[in-house]
């Protein structure tokens, strides 16, 4: 499958064939032994976004600056899947350091949408989304800082979930914006998403923000939406650039949920218009700090012509970072600098409080929130690369979930102009099981 599809979509940066075969043989032995050592994920092949450390496998965050880096340890999510007997197929393409919404900011090459190779797969986890959509992998792992799992899932017509902040350990994740980043799955069904998330979730002493809370994502999965109140945020249906075909597909999905027993209630997220602005201060500020570590001392490709230490930094970072990463590092450094901190960073953090309060108030009136995932279907490659603000507007319906720390899923809900549309379900913090239950109810009704 990978050999057949890769020339068309280019989802993988690296395929680890020999290692995968050895892991598959080990899984076969485990399954054959029949002593209960095998689980639901034993022997199942997955694709890993290039930001998650896999022991001994080149992991570059889609950046030239990390070319050749081989982590000496596994990320916790990877270690848990390895324990479960997973088969790792390789590292998937992404926007450099997960900064982007189209995978065009990769430091290597763009990935193409399996539904139409002239279009983007979304991003930043576009490679994992495309790999699952094309059948190259049974499931994938991605990361979501402002929509980087949910938006590519929507554009590629697969299921993608960002859990509650703190549900999955971030140990071994190459950080972009630490207060927003979460790891989550790409799958073709909601049940598979629940299975993978169940496997990677839970307390990890190596990530102090990873919560010590019970994780039970499967028990209530099939309970349906009868009696649940689903909030429809009016602001999310009026955002700039919302395509009529996307809106229509989502409205049909809401009607279907209603016919299956859900009660639709209108809710308001009044600070929606300020989410993008707050996000594009907070995320770049955190990234400018996180990316300071790429100094070509402990890892990364050093510019050999540099004569002094300062010259090493300048030449290495000039050559190693792409345009979008440089843009965000500049923006973040500016927002944090003396004299601008109060006007930008502190202000954005206060607006973040208001956005989190919007969600908390909305969830007093409903069990989950439903909307479109992205205001548009997959757009042509090259269409938005020269206009960063237009690219950022792609995330306007997803980044609120990151700012508020709440869980969200995207699953396919029909098409517009022949391209997949994503339905987003958001839940209150730690309401991951509710999000999955609502998504599963829609999926069952859709396929009935």
């Amino acid at each position, binding site marked *: 499958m990978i050999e057949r599809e890769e020339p068309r979509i280019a989802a993988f940066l690296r395929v680890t064939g020999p290692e995968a075969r050895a892991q598959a043989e080990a899984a076969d032995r485990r399954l054959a032994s029949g002593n209960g050592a095998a689980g639901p994920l034993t022997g199942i092949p997955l694709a890993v976004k290039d930001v998650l450390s896999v022991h001994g496998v080149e992991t570059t965050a889609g950046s030239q600056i990390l070319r050749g880096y081989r982590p000496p340890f596994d990320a916790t999510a990877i270690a848990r899947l390895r324990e479960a007997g997973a088969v790792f197929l390789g590292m998937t393409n992404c926007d450099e350091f997960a900064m982007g919404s189209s995978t065009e900011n990769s430091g290597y090459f763009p990935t193409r949408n399996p539904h139409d190779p002239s279009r983007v797969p979304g991003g930043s986890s576009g490679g994992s989304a495309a790999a699952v959509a094309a059948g190259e992998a049974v499931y994938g792992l991605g990361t979501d800082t402002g929509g980087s799992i949910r938006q590519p899932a929507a554009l590629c017509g697969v299921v993608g979930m960002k859990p509650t902040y703190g549900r999955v350990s971030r140990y071994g994740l190459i950080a972009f914006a630490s*207060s927003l980043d979460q790891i989550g799955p790409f799958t073709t069904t909601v049940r598979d998403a629940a299975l993978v998330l169940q496997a990677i979730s839970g307390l990890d002493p190596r990530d102090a923000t990873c919560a010590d809370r019970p994780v039970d994502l499967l028990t209530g999965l099939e309970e349906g939406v009868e009696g649940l109140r689903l909030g429809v945020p009016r602001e999310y249906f009026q955002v700039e650039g919302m395509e009529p075909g996307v809106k229509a597909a989502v409205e049909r999905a809401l009607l279907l949920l209603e016919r299956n027993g859900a009660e639709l209630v209108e809710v308001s997220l009044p600070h929606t218009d300020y989410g993008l602005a707050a996000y594009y201060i907070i995320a770049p500020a955190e990234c400018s700090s996180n990316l300071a570590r790429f100094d070509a001392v402990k890892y*990364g490709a050093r510019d050999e012509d*540099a004569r*002094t230490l300062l010259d*090493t930094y*300048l*030449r290495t970072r000039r050559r190693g970072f792409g345009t979008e990463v440089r*843009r965000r590092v500049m923006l973040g450094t500016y927002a944090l600098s003396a004299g601008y901190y109060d006007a930008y960073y502190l202000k954005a953090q206060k607006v973040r409080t208001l956005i989190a309060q919007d969600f908390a108030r909305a969830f007093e009136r409903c069990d989950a929130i439903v909307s479109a995932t992205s205001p548009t279907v997959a757009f042509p490659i090259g269409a938005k690369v020269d206009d960063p603000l237009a690219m950022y507007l792609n995330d306007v319906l997803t980044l609120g979930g990151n700012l508020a*720390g709440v869980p969200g899923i995207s699953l396919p809900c029909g098409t517009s102009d022949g391209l997949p549309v994503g339905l987003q379900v958001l839940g209150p913090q730690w309401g991951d099981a509710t999000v999955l239950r609502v998504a599963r109810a829609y999926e069952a009704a859709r396929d009935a």
Partner: protein
Amino acid sequence: MLARLGLEPGEEDFYAEQLGAILGHIDRLGEVDTDAIPPTAQVVPLANRMRDDAVRPCLTREQALANAPEARDGMFVVRAIQESEP
């Protein structure tokens, strides 16, 4: 310079124009009254978690140095902090 990005002379105008547009959008934050609003740095309530101050397994020196562009005698090697006198 602060971010050590090594901008080329021609790049400054390119980024200045794009960042100007982005900051123009961001300026709408000024419309929101936040006088009585506390800032949020961490959105999920958490308490500090302490662990025992005990030695645990960690990377060996060889593992820690394996990815370094340059290492010698068990140490990372960096270029001179100052240029040598001509």
